[in-house]
């Protein structure tokens, strides 16, 4: 062993061994494309729908494999820890889930992810497959700018999977599924914070250090430093920082929203629910109506301790799609 405080065998084998463990745990759910890090949805019937592919670096579990199944994704592509998967892997996923109606790629807005998925898209198109992509950029911690890569995609991505997945399941066209996904992207915003960092297994030491009384605001999901470091504050104050930053960016007043309180890895459910209470109090004060809430771990950052808050403004179409059946490891509704 390597002395790392992790329950692993070898830091460079974690993704492969995780995939094996997932397949052993859920033999009925997934199919692995041979010699790849792609898991696809196992279906007893011949599917006739738009295929949905997502993925990215590992270390965000249950993303993305937890969203593969009826009503959500058709394939998840695993990259190395915090490293986008490569075009050849993504291409295999696209080929596997092209049921004849084309494939939609749901990409989080990171340079690496965008480039690798785009290259795969080009390769697939060259093979005659119809491929579209959407890019999720929900993190209001990062400035929205045309000069930079812009905002990161974080936990809001899960809601894109959910809505696009439900839309695809109705038999909608690639263009319709893409539009549904884009509507979510345009109406979803997130913001996160951490009280402790995480350690990439192969790196062997934490990505940053926080003192015993510090927290980091505006953290991403890759152990990147955030935008601002402060003294640790109460759940009430944290909720107010996160929600106010989101509300300053997008007007959710007098609308109905879905709320996702996402734990980054080590934060106990107890604390997530306490934060939820504070978030909902603020939203109610600001005349934002809460239609639906999820509290749990949806898009993590290894063993980072922290949370993100996501708001999505709903319309009738989205509400109908949220009511549709979903059957994945993480969502069963």
């Amino acid at each position, binding site marked *: 062993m390597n002395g790392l405080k992790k329950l692993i065998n070898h830091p*460079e084998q974690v993704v492969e061994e995780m995939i094996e463990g997932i397949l052993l745990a859920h033999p009925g759910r997934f199919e692995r494309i041979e010699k790849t890090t792609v898991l696809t949805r196992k279906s007893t019937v011949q599917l006739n729908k738009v295929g949905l592919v997502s993925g990215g*670096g590992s270390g965000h579990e249950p993303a993305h494999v937890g969203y593969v199944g009826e009503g959500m994704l058709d394939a998840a592509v695993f*990259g*190395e*820890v*915090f*490293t*986008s*998967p*490569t*075009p*050849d*892997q993504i291409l295999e996923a696209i080929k596997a889930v092209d049921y004849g109606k084309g494939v939609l790629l749901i990409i989080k807005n*990171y*340079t*690496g992810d965008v*480039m*690798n998925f785009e*290259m795969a898209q080009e390769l697939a198109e060259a093979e005659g497959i119809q491929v579209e992509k959407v890019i999720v950029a929900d993190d209001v*911690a*990062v*400035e929205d700018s045309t*000069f*930079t*890569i812009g905002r*990161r995609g974080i936990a809001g991505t899960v809601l894109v999977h959910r809505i696009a997945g439900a839309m695809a399941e109705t038999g909608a066209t690639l263009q319709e599924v893409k539009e549904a996904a884009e509507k979510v992207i345009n109406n979803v915003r997130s913001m996160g914070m951490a009280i402790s960092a995480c350690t*990439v297994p*192969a*790196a062997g*030491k934490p*990505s*940053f250090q926080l003192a015993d009384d510090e927290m980091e605001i505006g953290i*991403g999901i*890759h*152990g*990147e*430093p955030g*935008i601002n470091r402060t003294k640790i504050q109460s759940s009430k104050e944290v909720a107010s920082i996160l929600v106010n930053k989101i509300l300053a960016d997008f007007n959710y007043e007098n609308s109905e929203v879905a709320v996702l309180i996402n734990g980054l890895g080590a934060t106990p459910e107890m604390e997530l629910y306490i934060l939820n209470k504070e978030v909902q109090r603020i939203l109610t004060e600001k005349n934002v109506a809460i239609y639906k809430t999820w509290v749990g771990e949806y898009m993590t950052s290894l063993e980072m301790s922290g949370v993100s808050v996501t708001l999505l403004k709903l319309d009738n179409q989205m509400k109908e799609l949220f009511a549709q059946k979903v059957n994945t490891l993480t969502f069963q509704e």
Partner: protein
Amino acid sequence: MELTVDMAINWMEIARDKYKENKETLTMLDQAIGDGDHGINMARGYQAVVEKIAETEYDHPADVLKSVAMTLMAKVGGASGPLYGTAFMNMSMVMKGKTVDQKVLKEAIDHAITGMKQRGKSEIGEKTLLDVWDQVSSYLDSEDLSEPKEIIEVCQAVVEDTKQIQATKGRASYLNERSIGHEDPGSMSSFYLFEALAEVLEKEATV
């Protein structure tokens, strides 16, 4: 100078050794303003590259670089995988069928830069590895390669200069002005790559 198949292979072997040795340095740099995987990505990628080219026969250095491109594309991932993959692919395209002298090498590097700019939607001066490639290109334009080791100094200076820049592309851009004061990890990995090239050329020159 002329870049031969053996030299191209040797270039990759030396690069692999450098990435293995300096994995921690790259990790540290990427942890400061990125996500900490750059050293791991490069070490993994070049290990695969060396394994790949060891099992293949090549007639021309362009073929070696094409193998390198394909392998990096398939084994690195992240931002650096597609960028370095594109760079080697474009270099290979330029070199194809030609004797790789200094002029061809410079053209190859320019074409690599064009490809990476397009792929990364980025420009010189945004605190990325492009900055290093750009200065290597200028150097090849203005100097003859009688002392290849000068490339190392050129690259070192660029890496040092990236400290002063605020990143506008890649993960480091999320930090806004907090990215200033840190060297760009990708520039550092490009430094190792050109350092390896310089050593190969130097060896050849002194034979």
